[in-house]
């Protein structure tokens, strides 16, 4: 009935069919394999990649970009002089992790509420005789340690940076002297858009400055001048808040 060639073809096809069944048979069976207890993994491990990276596509890209800002600064532990200052900032982002910047502050030249209380008749201390800070300039280094995003009640999401701050600067006082200062702290930057951000910085300022307390100098009939006020090291906490624009 069949020719020699047809029988050969049928033979090959039968063989293929049997082999296919044999291959798929263990899959259909799906037997449960029991392994000895001591051969089972006792700990989990994570793969270590050569180039680990958590963020593949940043929404906010700062690398090689310039940023300018306008800030209000609060000198939180300034006892005598006005605690406000206004700052202009400019930064250059060398990469996604670091930025270098320059800060300029103009100090308010009034007195604090404590100085006003001490100026009342009972104490009669005139702190206007002491040299006040006028301007400050800083070179600032930012290390962008954390980059992330946050959801505001599932309505919208905002990107942010949490960064370490390190600065060195000079402050000009009314006595025509310039005093050095160091600053260190941490700051948040919340991106309202891809360019505009709200920035807040908390710093500890370690700075040389004239002390405004000198016996007799604040109460005497004649103003003894700025020369009687001695210099010493001060520690001041500062809180800045302002807006930055990235372009």
């Amino acid at each position, binding site marked *: 009935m069949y020719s020699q060639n047809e029988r050969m073809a049928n033979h090959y096809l039968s063989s*293929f069919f049997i082999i296919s069944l044999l291959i798929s048979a263990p899959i259909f069976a799906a037997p449960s394999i029991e392994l000895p207890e001591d051969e089972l993994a006792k700990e989990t491990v994570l793969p270590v990649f050569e180039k680990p990276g958590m963020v593949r596509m940043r929404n906010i890209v700062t690398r090689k970009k310039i940023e300018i800002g306008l800030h209000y600064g609060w000198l939180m532990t300034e006892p005598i002089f006005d605690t406000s200052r206004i700052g202009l900032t400019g930064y250059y982002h060398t990469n996604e992790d670091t930025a270098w910047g320059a800060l300029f502050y103009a100090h308010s030249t009034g007195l604090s509420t404590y100085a006003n209380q001490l100026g009342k008749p009972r104490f009669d201390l005139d702190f206007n005789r002491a040299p006040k800070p006028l301007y400050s300039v800083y070179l600032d280094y930012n290390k962008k340690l954390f980059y992330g995003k946050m959801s505001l009640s599932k309505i919208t999401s905002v990107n942010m940076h949490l960064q370490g701050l390190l600065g060195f600067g000079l402050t000009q006082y009314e006595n025509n002297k310039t005093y050095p200062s160091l600053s260190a702290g941490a700051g948040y930057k919340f991106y309202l858009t891809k360019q505009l951000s709200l920035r807040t910085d908390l710093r500890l300022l370690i700075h040389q400055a004239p002390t405004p307390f000198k016996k007799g100098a604040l109460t005497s009939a004649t103003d003894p001048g700025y020369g009687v006020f001695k210099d010493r090291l001060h520690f001041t906490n500062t809180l800045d808040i302002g807006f930055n624009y990235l372009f």
Partner: protein
Amino acid sequence: MKKLFFTLFLITALTGESAFAQDSDVEELNLIEMELDRKSKPVAENSEVEDSSQAETAKSVQTQSQSQKNLPEVKSLEDLNRLADFKQVSVIQRRFLPRTERLQLFVSPTLTLNDPWFNVYGGTLRAAYNFREAWGIEVGYAFLSTSKSEALRELDKENNTIGKNIVNTKSYYSVDVNWTPIYGKMTWLDQQILYYDTYFSGGFGGTEIQDGSSQPTIHLGVGQIFSMSKKMAFRWDLSWNFFEAKQIDQTSNGSFNNVFLSAGFSFFFPEATYR
């Protein structure tokens, strides 16, 4: 005969392949492909379909998309019961550190950031309970130690003023409502992911000052909780207290405010095993 064997061979091979597809990874892959199909719908609609198979695929995707549109929008957990199998995939964003119906104990050192006359250090203890993920109540107590700053020592020495009359805080307690509208994640130097919540708190309490009296206090606060595990977290808190007390001349009252910075650890009870 050849056709019969060839058909049997094909069926066997295809059956074997479908057996492999039971693997969960492949299921996930199928889901992803389904998602990609769904995303490619506008292209299928706009492009001119050339052959019948492409037209069939486009029709299938369109039908699937249409059926998805007809499905109810998921607004609560109960709505998940009405989802059709593999037609609508709903993603529930889980918080890494759940807080609903859990007690939180917070322990941390504390310092005052804005006192020019005293160095103020101490500790804070707080207990919070969250009724919902975003809302909770918290009671707290801070005990503080004060020492004169360099400025106050100079003021007293050079000008013989009454430093003891300058208001300083010995302790404060508060009852607050906590609102946690913000949560998110951040990466540390592109190496590690951290989950965190940002909360705001507001409440009332009392501030014990240097003369032993307790002044009614309004408390506002903001802080963040960084999850370390499902039962422990790093937390920082910035608290701003407002109260009234006598000024340095002891004749008139004035407004005072303290800014406290606390950074410590929170512990959550009971264990979050239900997620």
